[in-house]
């Protein structure tokens, strides 16, 4: 057990922490390099919006905002202040929607993203792996080959294009799905009402489909190549010579072992999938973190962008970490080392 902790646990914990540290530091530095600062963004936006303010007024407001946004002090000071706030779980106020805390706004949007992302991820993972294994086990099966080619294509096509194509086809040319949002204009989210949940699902079909389609291809291909290696493994050949039922072999001998690397891959893919989800939300006008992020970018809302990136880094890192921890349960070889 001690060995397990030393050899397995410790390195992964270190990994986990580095991941978070590097990621968060990056997200802190990059926006600060930007040519403009949010105070200007605000002031100039008000002027562009035609509010009549006289010169001194603007000067005064500028000072006030800088103070309020906690942008006074040297970058280094700000950096440490930033970490200490972070440990208190405080991501600061959204600069674009001052003074609402970033965490509050993300808290509002995150559930929508997750409710979409997680099921889509799981579905695509399961189906992708299942059919991937099938197609390498029955290489002569025409249908599966077609699926593979499709998977290959879709997988490589950018999320945006898949999304826009689905949108155009299924809510414009063949209007069977709603055009945007997570529920109709005028309705208020009410998770106790079945009607609402139904329209909510209806609105989520295309966004989910986007994620699933793209994901499916990836898993399919990954699984196929994995399996085609495993098939030539002695114990599989043996199982066949022994005359075990094909289903038994496929499930217990092939899939079961191939799943393990795919599990790690799942963790690894989270970052990318998340980015994909962002784009998808923008296309479908889905009220999730993605829409929030784009908004923030357009209004130079650092703290919001940082907040989102930090959330996603911690989220992804934690997911990876958990999967790593669970891994031994699935793979005895790791368990008994």
């Amino acid at each position: 057990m001690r060995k397990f902790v030393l050899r397995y646990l410790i390195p992964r914990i270190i990994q986990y922490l580095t991941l978070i540290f590097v990621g968060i530091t990056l997200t802190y530095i990059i926006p600060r390099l930007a040519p403009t600062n949010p105070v200007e963004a605000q002031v100039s936006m008000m002027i562009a919006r035609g509010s009549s303010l006289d010169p001194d007024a603007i000067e005064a407001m500028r000072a006030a905002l800088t103070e309020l946004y906690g942008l006074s002090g040297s970058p280094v000071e700000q950096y440490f202040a930033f970490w200490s706030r972070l440990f208190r779980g405080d991501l600061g106020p959204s600069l674009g929607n001052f003074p609402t805390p970033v965490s509050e706004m993300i808290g509002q949007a995150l559930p929508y993203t997750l409710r979409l992302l997680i099921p889509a991820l799981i579905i695509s993972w399961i189906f992708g792996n299942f059919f991937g294994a099938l197609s390498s086990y029955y290489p002569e099966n025409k249908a599966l080959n077609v699926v593979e080619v499709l998977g290959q294509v879709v997988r490589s096509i950018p999320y945006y294009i898949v999304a826009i194509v689905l949108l155009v086809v299924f809510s414009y040319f063949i209007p069977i799905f709603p055009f945007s949002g997570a529920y109709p204009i005028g309705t208020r989210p009410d998770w106790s009402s079945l009607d609402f949940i139904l329209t909510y699902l209806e609105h989520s079909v295309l966004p989910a489909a986007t994620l699933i389609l793209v994901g499916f291809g990836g898993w399919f291909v990954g699984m196929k190549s994995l399996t085609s290696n495993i098939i030539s493994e002695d114990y599989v050949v043996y199982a066949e010579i022994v005359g075990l039922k094909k289903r038994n072999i496929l499930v217990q001998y092939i899939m079961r072992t191939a799943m393990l690397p795919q599990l790690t891959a799942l963790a690894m893919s989270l970052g990318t999938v998340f980015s994909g989800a962002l784009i998808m939300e923008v296309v479908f006008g889905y009220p999730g973190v993605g829409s929030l992020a784009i908004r923030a970018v357009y209004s130079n809302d650092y703290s919001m962008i940082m907040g989102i990136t930090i959330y996603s880094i911690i989220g992804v890192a934690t997911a990876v970490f958990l999967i790593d921890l669970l891994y031994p349960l699935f793979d005895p070889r790791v368990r008994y080392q």
Partner: protein
Amino acid sequence: MIFLSYDSPYDPSKSFVVPWDLPPSWEHPFGTTSRGQDLFWWLTFAVRNSLYVGVVTAIISRVISILVGLTAGYRGGWIDRVLMAISDTFVVLPLLPILILLSFLLRESMNLLNLAIILGLFGWSFDARLIRSQVLSLRERSFTRTAVYSGTNSFWITIHEHLPFVLPIVFATTLNNLLWSMGMEVTLSVLGLSDLSTPTLGTALFWANQHGALVAGVWWWITAPALVTAVLFLGLYLLFTSINEYIDPRTRLRLIGG
């Protein structure tokens, strides 16, 4: 198509060289845009530029991933752990927000080349991992051991004994990396965050959106780039898989059942 771009009758940087909003015809196979450009010829440049991004990214990230992968895999120990920690960080880092920020930061200097370089700097990690694992398995092969016993130095081993076996993987991953970076280009451009005056598959869609091509009934302005992208990606995929099967010793062995 790429090569066609070199004898394009139109300069892609010019607008209103042909009548606008013409549906596809023999004269204009993909129709013309609301900016008075021949979409087909314009896309020939787009494909070329997108590929350019893809290739540059691929090259840069290949170099990094091979170096990191080989070193990590061969040296092992703490070097390995550190390198892998870093690369894993890059793997799971949600890139999009960061890229968006970067493109804001670089503004007009965010041209194709810089974009490609940035993508290259971000896109190496996953493949580095693959290469490393391959090297690890190679290290167990006897010939390495004998080489080690016979006192040949590590660098020599790495280059002469591992690289040949690693190359097939590198090649295979190149495709994914290529497509990935081209995809990223599309994403950023669509958000209006890349060099919009250069024709790429992404900017094609961006300008189409800016001209409301969809509702204006100029559907070909959306359809054509999307199709070309799909076809291009499929084409690349087929090309690479066939080449890969050809150069990869393992697949070759399997095929001739040695």
